[in-house]
């Protein structure tokens, strides 16, 4: 029988300050970059035209650029996409010379005829695999919707966790997830991934996945809080993380196996999605242990719960509690009916 991390007893919480440092090292430069350069939004968000072409031979992006230049489409981005003879041409709205007469549709036709003049007639010499033409209005609506989706998912999660657990747990879980969104945005910025609708979908899935992971640990915390009434929260958090460690390794291992398979095999269109999901598994696992658990401790300390564990939340492990709760079985006053 293989057992990984059985009876593990690591002091995870002790390393929390190092974890904060690591997180800050990821988020702060990423955000600085984000503020300076923004994100690489897909034309779904910016509006514009995307054309994916397959040429008979790998002609190289320069040849395509010269073809477009000759037709007066100057500011388009040209990128090799997957195979050596496939290219994606993006003409965004708002770049002066990228779009013909401000219309996304005529741009597609203009690109088509420009390619035809330089490369030779259509089906033999090149093939248009995909075109997308998005007006500016649609893009603006989509941006609004993406933020709405994240916002509402937070609200719903807060309410659900407040009902099923307690608001302190909900707050800690949502803050940890917010941290994941920040690190993911930084990650997207570092790799300069194109933010398409599907990538926004990946970020939202990440929200669900990270919450899921945090809840597994919090569920154990909830159980251990009932079971070990003498331990303080610091010990209980560590205990719970250690107890769920084999599960975390197994589940994240299997999920990672599928996302890595997607990164390597599922093609160019899905690659940004798969990369974001792979990173999401890292950051979701990390934040459940190093962000959500310590945050729960701080929240307990700040706004102590009923059994006043918060007051002892930060005391080192193993020391004697100040006010031990009554051991179970101690005399209590009950109403007569219950006897």
């Amino acid at each position: 029988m293989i057992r990984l991390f059985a009876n593990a007893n690591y002091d995870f919480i002790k390393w929390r300050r190092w974890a904060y440092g690591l997180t800050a090292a990821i988020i702060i430069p990423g955000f600085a970059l984000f503020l300076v350069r923004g994100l690489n939004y897909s034309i779904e968000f910016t509006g514009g035209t995307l054309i994916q072409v397959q040429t008979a031979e790998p002609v190289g992006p320069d040849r395509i650029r010269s073809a477009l230049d000759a037709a007066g489409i100057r500011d388009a981005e040209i990128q090799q996409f997957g195979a050596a003879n496939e290219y994606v041409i993006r003409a965004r709205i708002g770049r002066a010379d990228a779009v013909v007469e401000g219309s996304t549709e005529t741009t597609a036709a203009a690109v088509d005829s420009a390619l035809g003049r330089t490369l030779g007639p259509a089906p033999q010499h090149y093939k248009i695999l995909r075109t997308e033409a998005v007006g500016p209005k649609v893009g603006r609506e989509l941006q609004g919707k993406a933020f709405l989706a994240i916002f509402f998912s937070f609200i719903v999660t807060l309410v659900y966790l407040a009902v099923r657990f307690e608001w302190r747990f909900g707050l800690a879980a949502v803050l940890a997830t917010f941290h994941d969104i920040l690190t993911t945005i930084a990650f997207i910025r570092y790799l300069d991934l194109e933010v398409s609708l599907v990538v926004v979908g990946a970020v939202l899935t990440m929200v669900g996945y990270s919450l899921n992971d945090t809840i597994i640990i919090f569920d154990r915390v909830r159980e251990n809080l009932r079971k070990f009434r003498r331990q303080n929260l610091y010990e209980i958090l560590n205990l719970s993380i250690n107890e769920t460690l084999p599960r975390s390794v197994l589940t994240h291992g299997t999920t990672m196996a599928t996302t890595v398979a997607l990164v390597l095999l599922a093609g160019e269109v899905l690659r940004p999605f798969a990369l974001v999901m792979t990173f999401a598994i890292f950051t979701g696992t990390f934040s459940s242990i190093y962000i959500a658990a310590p945050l729960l401790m701080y929240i307990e300390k700040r706004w102590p719960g009923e059994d006043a564990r918060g007051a002892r939340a930060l005391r080192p492990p193993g020391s004697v509690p100040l006010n031990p709760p009554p051991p179970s079985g101690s005399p209590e006053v009950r109403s007569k009916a219950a006897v």
Partner: protein
Amino acid sequence: MRTIRSRLIAIGGLLALAVWQLIPTDVTQRVRDATTGRMKDTTIRRVPINLGLDLQGGIHLALEVDQSKGPVPDCADAIQRAEKVVRTRIDEFGTSEPVVQIQGRCRLIVELAGEKDPARAKGIIQRTAFLEFRITDMKNLFRDALPEIDKALQRAGVRPSGQGAAAASVTQLFGTDTGKAKGKPAKGKAAAKDTTDLNAPGPLSSLLFQGQVNGEYLVPEEQVPVAESLLARPDVQRLTPRGLELRWGTEVLSRAGRSYRTLYAVEDRPIITGEYLQDAKSTRDPLTNQSVVNFVLSRRGGRIFERETGRHVQDYMAIILDGRVQGQPPIIKSQIGQRGQIELGAKPLQDAQDLALVLKAGALPAPLTIIEERTIGPSLGQDSIRDGLHAGIVGVALVVLIMVVYYRLSGVLAVAALALYVVFTLAGLAGFGFTLTLPGLAGLVLSVGIAVDANVLIFERIREELQHGKLVRTAVDEGFKHAMSAIIDSNVSTALTAFILYLVGTGPVQGFAITLIIGIAASMITAIFVVRTFYMIWLDRRPDMATLSV
């Protein structure tokens, strides 16, 4: 034992239901014939999962009313007219199930899966609507010409299609007297002679049944493609009486369990066109409780209409939008000037609203502008499916390997449940009619990785219980019991996020969210219920088992 049996029955039932959803069925698709350029129905057998545009190729268009040449006051009204117009033209698209729907208030979505020619599709959608009123073939000239046409077809070697069982030539389906209105007796007699000639059912006339109105014919739905191809032949067109044209109707009527499409012989000259129409409104007449449509013509149009209707009192007037006869042609009761009323009798108000939309679509064509367009070539879709399947197979193989190596026999149980999970998820997509998109495929692959989480939670819990020295049977029971709250809370919160994604998202994101939600539901069933049943059978066979392969 009894509980095991009932559990197995439940699993078997679910599996049967799922497999039933996935059995390949015959799907009728309209495809454009490469040589003739016409649409024809073909039937293929395939697994009934709808593939999104990104997987099978096709074109997605979002359209709005063009306001660049002056504001359109009521865009919701205009987009409804546009929808009506696009629907009328639906048969012109080279696709099986075109999606035409209004999104929000003022936006029209058209999705044409499998359409290979986007320029043509856009042309069809953006073409200005053309409305005309034409008098039907009141003298039954077309019916009289049918024997000649049949003979010509027979000479050309066209056999009557085997379906001609329903008697011979133009058959009275309702027993209405077609000469009632204004039929010319002399011609009618000649026709009567030919129709009695039951021994020689003609290739064309065996497909046609006389309708209620002069010049109206009914064609059995399944014979429509045959009739279409016969009518398109040059010899048939040459023999069609001068001054007449044939127009298909939009209505599908059902009589005695069969459905029929309407075909009209109408005059080739309209008595008036949509440019003279100013407005149309549907109401319910408070006195007679009839659905009616009131329309107003321009002053010039009123003069033309007055002259024409004066000449055609008691004739039937076909309302034709883009070459399609809309509804049943009403009879002209009297001379009509600038204002007219179409009475629809006991028909629901909805029909009147539809007709008013048709009239307005012809009068006030709504120019559409494309605000979003996506065209995906069919080869790209096939590549995506192939790559997605490769990634899926490798991903699933890795998950299987990890589970079996780590949890041994219990891992095998989890993998068996995983196979059920994949079947259930696909059946869910097919059964609810959701569409599988490329992001959906990614969601499916990803959810296989997540689906084992519930089993991992349970197995780890059982291991813990065994470690605490519990008996195998107790450990299994406790393992399932204690893992439950974590499984439910984590899955519900993920499902809630996916649900919001579905509500707020559009297109591809919705497809992804749906796959995720169905996947979560399926994984809860398989991981908890199915694996539990496997354990029960296992423990039942080996009641004295001391160690558990977990």
